[in-house]
């Protein structure tokens, strides 16, 4: 138990920011939902840490749990379809730089799976790993990433024009 707790603490210290950022981006800057979901992720990690066999890296394993937990919060996400308005407010609470805040706002305008894919790409995760996490073909993922990058670029461009 002591060793598991120590490993869990190390995982928590190292990966909480990554988990929280993915949840924060997925839930369009809704800090409270992102916090709740991050906690949910760590409950699952704690419950299943003994089952982790090291078939993938611990980071990939945590990604998989984070992605599935975010997708599982379907109701929370739907209730917040109009939450794009909150994005600015919440980002001000956390006091993010303008470029970072704009990036979250732009990501928030993508659809659910696109949001998760682009966040893993921004984390510099390998395409093979992302495809495994999502359970889709790598070729399919490549097409998706290309399309998402174009879409994200257009959104950011529109945001710049609006200023």
């Amino acid at each position, binding site marked *: 138990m002591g060793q598991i707790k120590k490993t869990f603490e190390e995982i928590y210290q190292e990966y909480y920011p990554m988990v929280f950022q993915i949840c924060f981006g997925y839930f369009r800057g809704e800090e409270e939902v992102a916090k709740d979901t991050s906690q949910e992720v760590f*409950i699952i990690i704690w419950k299943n840490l003994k089952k982790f066999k090291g078939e993938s890296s611990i980071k990939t394993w945590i990604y*998989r749990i984070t992605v599935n937990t975010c997708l599982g919060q379907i109701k929370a996400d739907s209730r917040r379809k109009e939450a794009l308005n909150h994005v600015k407010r919440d980002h001000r609470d956390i006091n993010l730089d303008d470029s*970072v805040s704009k*990036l*979250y706002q732009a990501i928030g305008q993508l659809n659910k799976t696109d949001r998760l894919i682009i966040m893993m790409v921004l984390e510099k995760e390998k395409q093979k790993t992302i495809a495994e996490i999502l359970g889709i073909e790598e070729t399919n993922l490549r097409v998706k990433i290309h399309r998402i990058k174009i879409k994200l670029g257009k959104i950011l461009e529109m945001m710049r024009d609006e200023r």
Partner: protein
Amino acid sequence: MKDEFSELENAWSAGQKKLAQQQPTFADMQQILEQRKSASRSFQYGTLAILLFTLIGFCAFFMYVAPVKQTMSRVGAIAMLGGLTIRVLLEILSLLRLRRISTLSNSKENTKNSIRFHAFRVKTQSIYSPVIIAVFTVGFYLLTPEFVDNLSFNMVLFIDISYLFIAAILFYVIRMGVKKELQNLEEWTDLLRELEAD
């Protein structure tokens, strides 16, 4: 395009450092985890507990308070208890299906399992539950003649009319449940479509 994306990667990395300042201490997190673990358990088993409690209540009622003697009343009691037992079994089956949804599997598999679970919930709520309530209701009214022999007519009339209100509320709750489950099913199906699209 590549340079532009590198800028986004830098912004993302900077954002993570900023968000890391929000990280609760490990001691705080441990406390939160303990609280949430028990909350999630009670939520999952809540419906099953209520149904079991109701079933035990009715069993005790027919065994100790009103052990019915007439054949028609016995058929009624069996219909009520049988209906409730089937509903309890359906709830157990539903919990078993819920357990099959594993966040440790890949997203596509997880989504497919969630679709199966919600499809089962829709079937339970829209088909099995109304049938169970109907059987339960018939069973309930089959008790009326024997109750009339033992209670005042006005009292039996009051019970029978009150039951209509309870049944109406139950149907309303089921209808809302179906609506909610259909919405969940639709959203999971959309998600699967998103995942499978190019």
